[in-house]
């Protein structure tokens, strides 16, 4: 049992959980949370791939990729959340 194996499997499990949630969650906010879990799973895989065997010098390229990925995902989240807020405002108004 090495850390890369443990966390690699963790990442895959998290991705699968997120995928399952994204496919069947109905609440908009929770569906977004599920997608965030997927992104974390993918991040885990890349960080693990960078680690490999020499533990003191992991490959910096995947680290840079994950940082890029984190920023990209937060941007997408922000847009989705804005849509959710606006939609809820419109729907609530129309229900009145």
């Amino acid at each position, binding site marked *: *049992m090495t*850390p*890369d*194996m*443990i*966390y*690699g*499997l963790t990442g*895959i*499990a998290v*991705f*699968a*959980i*997120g*995928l*399952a949630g994204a*496919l*069947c969650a*109905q*609440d908009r*906010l929770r569906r*977004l*949370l*599920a997608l965030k*879990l997927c992104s*974390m799973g993918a*991040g*885990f*895989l890349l*960080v693990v*791939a960078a*680690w*490999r*065997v*020499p533990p003191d*010098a992991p*490959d*910096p*390229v995947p*680290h*840079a990729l*994950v*940082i*890029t990925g*984190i*920023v*990209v995902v*937060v*941007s*997408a*989240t*922000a*847009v989705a*959340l*804005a*849509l*959710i*807020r606006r939609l*809820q*405002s419109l729907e609530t108004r129309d229900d009145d």
Partner: protein
Amino acid sequence: MTDPLVIFDLLLGLSIVALALAVLSVRDLFAAIVLFVIFGLLSALAWVRLSAPDVALAEAAIGTGVTGALLLKTLHHLRYVTGTLDRPEAMNLTPVTPVPMPVLWVNAAFCGLIALGLAVAFLEAPKVGPGFDALVAEAMPASGVDHPVTAVLLNFRAYDTLMEVVVLLAAVIAVWQVERGLSEAPAPHLGEVWQGFARLALPAIVVVGTYLLWVGAEAPGGAFQGGAVLASVGLLLLLSRFYVPQPAHRGIARLAFVLGTGVFSAVALLVSGGGRVAFEYPLEHAKTLILLIEGLVTISIAVTLAALFHGREPVALGEEERRNDT
């Protein structure tokens, strides 16, 4: 005897998976967000264990800190709009018809199968795989900085990083387009203890953010982490109503959003010529240029993230418009 660190890793891995399940299964949405934040911070710990402090910093600051605040803000807004602020629990806000059990099982089985396939593919991977280590080590002296991750982000793969800043810009434009107006769900007054704390904490956060940016040239840190930490200053200002965005501030805000992308792409273009291609910094100026880009990108990221948190273009709406618009 087993290394206790292995037990630590196992325990951490298991709790991360358990938290992921809990985020999706807990009934209360507020609890789901709290659990998600904790999930993110535990993941950051796991990445520390994988010797990726840069990623852990970025995840803690952006993926968890800013995202958590964004999610809470949205939940608060939804509760305000639906008039359920006074309920103790924040249940699902869109009407939800329960998914039939068989569908859930099929879904779980499907995703389980995918996970199984991925796990097999993962375990099949070569233990000592090919990678960029050697290439990066070889190119480091020509990069202008001493920290490999920063070198990759701002030199070797600077094009990716520019596009990442473009994504942020696209996000803020899209968010401003979707939502506008000044009115907002009300926030409580935080009291005097908080005021004292803010006077201490805000400058401290600014110092830490700047330090992270500065240290990025030779150690973990850099524009994204520094920017996110600085963005949390903006978050605190907005949360405590020390700063309320005004329509008149839009021009300068636009400038700040564009600043990072603009300078980054302008430098990338201007250094080219005379046999050099875009993004090819002359070696003697590489460090200066990278620090310049990083500094301005940091400002852009901080302002953009704070604007994403605020989430609407500050426009004064007329009475009629407001009725139709909020």
